[in-house]
Structure formats: structure tokens, C-alpha cells
């Protein structure tokens, strides 16, 4: 089934029922206010939901979902709306369940190394809460100052530390979720190896298509004993990728290995004046963490390797303040892009690390072929690239060129043995790639699994899996984006 039909404008009766559950100030149905929710970080497609509800408890979410079923209306969850793939786009309208008011930290157990949190909790707030305990929550996407744990679960979020520490699914022990039929289920829990199939692992990354998570039990990670943070400046991208390859080849697993190209460096330097050379082709932030004796040794090896690869200079942080400064240039890179262009689109692709030079070369050519500017910042350690395509969204023709370039880059990622999404998810943005990445049988199997959880297709319809009848290229053909529900 491709979803409930017809796409609904919600009735007054339904609104009343919803108001009965969440109260007047838990309901947004005024058109002006709904515009806020018409898109997430993927601004190319917009569609306002018919209503937004802001529940404050699991019980309310259960009731909301049941009511949506009764009225045959689609619904979907939303955290902070930082998705870059349209994960929060309410295709076909319906009820948006914003979990931002459920942001409690319900339990912290240091001895057993877990915490139980509500889905609307902002990611960084968990780690901030743990400061001083010797523990932190490891998955730290760049948007962690805004994104929610529930959203992290939906997209299996990553961030700069995944090479060493893994992604969200490696840190989730259990989930409580409201299934699309309104039933509540508990998967996993604070102890490991709960007998049964790993539905917790399956749920993470399901992009809201299996239900709405209402509690998450997460693993807490020891703070590293020590850090060494370096910034290496290279004359060419290939020098930088050689150095990276050799660092890995030396058996070092850096905690972070972030690369920025000249374009980004220019923006960051203009905004923050870190004293970076504007003519450097690539700058690599390298961090190792662990025992002091180990990281000292690894840092020496890394500096040696970078120099041998032709680094112009390697700066090393000699204090926590200097370390924060080096990181600032990476973490605020996106904030600085506004200097370069009014709009930008952050792509998310993956290639095997050894193919990085090829994809970067391809991106350069692609930019020139489509006459657009692309700057790059990415998680070099795991081959996860983030080419940032710059444009002015008022220029419709340029937008088309951006979309074409974006598609070409992702197609090339697949050709090189990679993936079309390392951490942002498929959402709506990349549904057209699913049949390039997966066979018909693969998609059939996935649809079967989705139908176990979401047989009527009301929950997050038209996400992740291609819908029957959709040709997949809608986002390019439409000049006034606003994805129509496939019927």
C-alpha cells in the first residue's frame, strides 16, 4: 500500500479530538504558525502539515496515533527538524507529532552505564548533564546543539567521532515506541543481550516509518583520559588524503579526522579569523584520544606522517582552550557558509576511504560542469563526504543545476562502492536512489518488514522506500517543489 487515500485535510472533528488530548496550547492549526513546520533542513521541498500537536507524554502520543487511525489520517514525528533529507516533511499532509516538549532525562545510572531519556531531549544536553561524571553520550552530530535524541534514533545519526566510536545504533540499548496502530512496545532495555531478534537495532535508522519512539535507553561512554588535537595544512587534496590513508595504515584510529577544503577555509577564516592560510587546498583536523602515553605517541606519528605527505604545517593544540579553538573552526563551518552564498545544500554521500581522492576530483569537475560552486567538509576517516552546493534559491534554474550536480555526485559514490547517505538518511530527498542502491527484491523485503510495523502506511508515509507509482524524479521535475503524495 502506498498510503492512506485521499491525502487529508483534517476535519474539525479530528482537531477537536486532538485538542482534547493535548489541550489548546498543545495544538497548532493556524496557517501562519504551520509554515514553521513546512520543511526541515532540506529546504528544497516544502509542505505544511495540516496540524501540529505537541504532546507531553507517551500516553498522549498513544491517543493521538489511535485518533489518526480512526480518522484515516497520516501522521509523522518531528524532533528539532534538523533533518537534511526531508525526514520531517509531511508528505500528503496530516498530523505532525512534535516531540520537543518531551525532553526529560528520566534516569542516569553511571554504575550500569546507561541513561533513559525522552525523544525531544537535545543531544548535547545529555552530555552537558553528564559533565564531571567521567561519562558522556558519544554520538555527537554537528547539529547536536539543536537535534534531538529521538531524531538521532530515527536517522541513526553519526557525527565526527564515528570512526572510533560508532553511530547512534551502537549506543542505543532500548527503545519504547508507539507503533502505528497505537500500541506501545518496549524493545531491549538497560541490560545487554535481551533474548530475541534485535528489533532495537532495526528500529534505529527507520526514519519514523516504524512508529514514534517515546523513550530511549542509551549507553554512556567513558570520557577519554587525554586528547591530542592537530590541524594539518596541505597544498593539495591528494596530499591530505594520502596522509589520512597512511595514518589509518599505521594502525591508528583517530577519534576524529575532519577535512575541509579551500572553499570552507575561506568562509571560516572570513568569519572567525583563525589565522588559516587562504591558499591551502585542504585542512585536516585530527584528534586522537585515549591514555596519555598513547595519544602522545600517536600524535608524534601523525605529525611525522603528515609532514612526509607534504604538509605545509601541522598545528598542535597545547591546552584545552587551543583544542576548543581548533574544533570551533570545524563545528562552525556551516555557520560560516552564509558568507559565501544565500542558500546551500549539504549533501551526504559515502565512499570507501581509499576512493576519497577520486570522489573529490569528481566533485571538482562536477562543479565546473554545472557552473556552481561546491565546497567540501567531511568525515575523512570513514569516507563520509559532505559537499556543500552553494546557490541562490530565488534562481530556479540554478536550483535545477544544483539538483543535477547533487545527483551526479551521489551516483558516483555508488559507482565507487559507497552509499548515498552516511548519516542524513533517505528521507524524501534520496528515495529516487533507492532503486540504484538496492534491487527490487531488496526493496520488497524492506517493504515487508515495514508492513510488520506500519501495515496501513499511515506513519511517515512516502519516506525511505519508493512508493508504488512514483517515478522517483519528482524533485527535479517540479519547479515549485511541494511533493505530491503518490496515489
Amino acid at each position, binding site marked *: 500500500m502506498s498510503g492512506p487515500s485521499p491525502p487529508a485535510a483534517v476535519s474539525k472533528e479530528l482537531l477537536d479530538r486532538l485538542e482534547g488530548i493535548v489541550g489548546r496550547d498543545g495544538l497548532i492549526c493556524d496557517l501562519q504558525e504551520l509554515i514553521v513546520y513546512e520543511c526541515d533542513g532540506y529546504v528544497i521541498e516544502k509542505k505544511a502539515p495540516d496540524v501540529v500537536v505537541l504532546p507531553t507524554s507517551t500516553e498522549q502520543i498513544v491517543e493521538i496515533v489511535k485518533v489518526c487511525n480512526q480518522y484515516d489520517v497520516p501522521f509523522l514525528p518531528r524532533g528539532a527538524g534538523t533533518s537534511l533529507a526531508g525526514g520531517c516533511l509531511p508528505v500528503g499532509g496530516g498530523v505532525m507529532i512534535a516531540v520537543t516538549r518531551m525532553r526529560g532525562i528520566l534516569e542516569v545510572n553511571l554504575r550500569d552505564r546507561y541513561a533513559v531519556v525522552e525523544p525531544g531531549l537535545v543531544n548535547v544536553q545529555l552530555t552537558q548533564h553528564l559533565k564531571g561524571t567521567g561519562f558522556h553520550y558519544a554520538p555527537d552530530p554537528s547539529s547536536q546543539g539543536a537535534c534531538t535524541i529521538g531524531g538521532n534514533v530515527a536517522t541513526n545519526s553519526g557525527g565526527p567521532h564515528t570512526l572510533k566510536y560508532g553511530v547512534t545504533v551502537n549506543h542505543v540499548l532500548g527503545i519504547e515506541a508507539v507503533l502505528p496502530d497505537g500500541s506501545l512496545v518496549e524493545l531491549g532495555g538497560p541490560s545487554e543481550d535481551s533474548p530475541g531478534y534485535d528489533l532495537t*537495532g532495526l528500529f534505529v*535508522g527507520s526514519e519514523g516509518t516504524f512508529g514514534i519512539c517515546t523513550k530511549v535507553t542509551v549507553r554512556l561512554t567513558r570520557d577519554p583520559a587525554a586528547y591530542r588535537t592537530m590541524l594539518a595544512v596541505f597544498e593539495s587534496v591528494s596530499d591530505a588524503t594520502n596522509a589520512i590513508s597512511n595514518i589509518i595504515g599505521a594502525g591508528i584510529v583517530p577519534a576524529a579526522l575532519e577535512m575541509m577544503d579551500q572553499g570552507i577555509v575561506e568562509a571560516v577564516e572570513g568569519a572567525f579569523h583563525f589565522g588559516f592560510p587562504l591558499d591551502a587546498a585542504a585542512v585536516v583536523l585530527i584528534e586522537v584520544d585515549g591514555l596519555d602515553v598513547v595519544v602522545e605517541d600517536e600524535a608524534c606519528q601523525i605529525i611525522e606522517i603528515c609532514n612526509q605527505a607534504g604538509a605545509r604545517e601541522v598545528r598542535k593544540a597545547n591546552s584545552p582552550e587551543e583544542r576548543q579553538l581548533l574544533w570551533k573552526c570545524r563545528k562552525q563551518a556551516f555557520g560560516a557558509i552564509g558568507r559565501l552564498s544565500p542558500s546551500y545544500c549539504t549533501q551526504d554521500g559515502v565512499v570507501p576511504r581509499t576512493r576519497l581522492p577520486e570522489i573529490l576530483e569528481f566533485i571538482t569537475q562536477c562543479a565546473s560542469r554545472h557552473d556552481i560552486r561546491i565546497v567540501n567538509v567531511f568525515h575523512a576517516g570513514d569516507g563520509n563526504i559532505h559537499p556543500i552546493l552553494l546557490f541562490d534559491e530565488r534562481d530556479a534554474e540554478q536550483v535545477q543545476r544544483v539538483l543535477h550536480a547533487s545527483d551526479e555526485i551521489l551516483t558516483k559514490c555508488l559507482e565507487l562502492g559507497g552509499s548515498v547517505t552516511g548519516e542524513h538518511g533517505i528521507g524524501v530527498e534520496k528515495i529516487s536512489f533507492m532503486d540504484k542502491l538496492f534491487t527490487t527484491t531488496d526493496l520488497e523485503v524492506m517493504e515487508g518488514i515495514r508492513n510488520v510495523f506500519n501495515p496501513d502506511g499511515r506513519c511517515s508515509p512516502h519516506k525511505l522506500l519508493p512508493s508504488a507509482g512514483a517515478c522517483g524524479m519528482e524533485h527535479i521535475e517540479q519547479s515549485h517543489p511541494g511533493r505530491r503524495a503518490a496515489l
Partner: protein
Amino acid sequence: MSGLPDNPDRQWTPSTQSELQRFVADNASGQKTPLYPVGGRTSLGLGYPRTAPGVTICMSGLKRTVDYPARDMTITVEPGLTLAELANQLAVERQQLPIDVPLAHRASVGGAVAKNIAGPRRFGYGTLRDYLIGVTAIDGQGRMFHAGGRVVKNVAGYDLCKLLVGSLGSLALISQLTFKLKPLPESAGTLVMGFSSFSAIDEALERLLTSAARPVALEVLNPMAARQVATESKLPLSVDTPLLMLRVEGTEREVECQLTTLQDELRHHSPTKTGVLSADDSARLLEVLSEYRVSSDDPLTFKANLLPSKAMQFAEWATQSGIAVQVHAGNGIVIGHLPDNVTSAPQIEGRIESLRSFARQRRGNLVILNCDSQWKRDLPLFGEPEPGWPLMERVKATLDPQNLLNPGIFLYGR
């Protein structure tokens, strides 16, 4: 009702993945015979026994290394490859898949994944679900599907790799696997300490929560288990008190530094005995500890999972009942062997029920890893049903609607 014996004539060894896929598909539309995949046959004890004759599919014919781009730190292999052979290939590039699998010379990669085998180093390295990044598998309908990929960062599609880890071959036959890898540490060492009581060990474990060292394994043995491990390993372990064993890895300097740190930190917890094992002895000990779960003439071996902070209580109580236990103390996993004076089904049931109840009250459960086949039908092998089990049955029904893959092996046993 006991399991029907294997009919040795009905065995089949596919030599390619596509051959396997055709066989399963033909079977699903034709004969509809139950299929029983096996690898190295080293963990067949886990799961309900067969009740219907079928075809044993020997996956050992599929043992190619498909691709090993060492600089990408991933490897793609077929399921019949043994863990030892895999380790040898990886060691050449100074890499490893850091999972402790017993009987590695026989155990297959596919089997380890299907049974989600793990051992002492799970504390420092995680388990197979943290390493399997791509899979090709054939479901009960004969559909060959893929999930994940060859890259360590990938969120395209549903994470069916996670679904298949620990699925006991009941959802799909895994025909190809891609793992992410870790570097192989230069050296290792183990600090072995005797303590007068489990509560003393518990205090030490609490101290270790914020240790300046980073041990990769925190193992506890009660005296019975210590004796068994000492005998098997031929290492000079003290066996009259519970033991705490801390394994550290890294460069030689790092290992030495950590061992010193750990001794300093735990000195004040009054260990009755302290000893340090060399790298070679540590390797030997790790092997024996990994194999503890399968080393058994004992009537029944169980695995309890519970909150780590309650594991020493469990160990204490089990010890009082004469059960030999090994605890992966940082993870709250207890492997126990019932003593051989427990001989009747009611005795076993009673014992297991009280152990399971203990674990349940501490947010856990209890699985039977192996026992005499005559008892298997009477015991809930996978513990008390978890809330997600009905949903899991529906997942099974979607991948294997005719219940042809290891029918009845898992969950409720039906």
C-alpha cells in the same frame, strides 16, 4: 518429545551463493522441506531441537574471501570461513575482528553471527552487531536480499544486518558478510586478582568505572570456574577465592602502564592475591575464557543477562548453589554450568526458574546455551518472553512465511 535424529543422507553443501539461493527458492515453491543451516557446528546447542526431518545445509562450502581492502578496514567474506582463518588473514595486515568465538578453528563466521557469539572482550570492543556493516542473505522464500554495504558509514535502508545478528538462522541464510575491522594491538597483559568475597570484587568493579586504565575485559570467576579454567589453561591461577581478571591491550608500554595503574587503583581493595600474566599467557587465558561457555560435560549451561551492578549478587547466589560461573562483569553477562548432581527435569526447571527470576528482577533474563536434549522441550530456552516477541514473530512470518528455516528454533520454540 525429543528431537528427531538427523538423517545423515539429507545433507547438502552448496558451493556458490547462487546455488544456495536457487535451492532455497525451489524448496519454498516445491518440497517445502525444513532447512537447517550449519557452519562449524560449534554452537548447535543453542536453540530448540528439530522436530521435523529436513535438509542440513552445510555452509562450509561457501568460504571465499570476497574482498579485503585493508586500508578501508573492511572485509567481505562468505559465511563458511572459520574465525581462525579470518583472523590469520587479518593479522597479516595487523587487523582483527575483535570478537571472542570459542573453537575458532572450526567455528564459522556465519554461525558466530547467527548465534551472536561474544566473549570477554565485548567489554572493550562491543559485539558482532557493532561490526557487521553489510550482508547478503536468502530468506525462507528464497529471496536473496542485501542490506548495508561495504562502507562503515551507511544509513540507506533498514538495518537488516542488526536483524540477522543473533537470529539463529531462522529469518534468512546469510551468504555473504562485510565487517568493519579494528587494528591488532601489539601486546596484551592480564592482571589476575583474588578477593575474599564477591562484594569485595563488586567494590573493585565500581572503582574501575573511573579507572585511568581502559581494560578490554573484566572477567570474574567463582572458585569452581577458576579451577576449571586453571586446569584447562595450565596457568597458575589461585582457585580458592573468586577471581577478577583484567585484560589490557596496546603497545608494550601501554600495557605495562595500565597494569601498574590497575594494581595501584585496586591495592586498597584488599586483594588476597595479585599476579600479572604475560602476553602469551594472556592469550592462552583469553582462549580458555572464550571457550568456557562450550566447555562442558555439565548437564546445563546458561547465560544470564542483567544489570552489571547486580552481577556479583547473582554470582554469589549461584556459587552458593554449587554452580560454576564466569561473569563478563562490565556487561552483566553470567555464564553458568549447573553441577552434575542436578539430574532430573523438575530439579533443573526449579533451579533455572529461580535463577531466571533473579535476573528478571534485575532488568535481565536467562537463556539456556546448551543442555541435554531430553530437557530442552520442557524448558523455556530463551527465558521469559520479552515484550517485543509478538512483533518478532511477525517479522519471522514476513521473511519465512512457511516456517522452513530452522522451524521452531527460537523464541517460544514453535
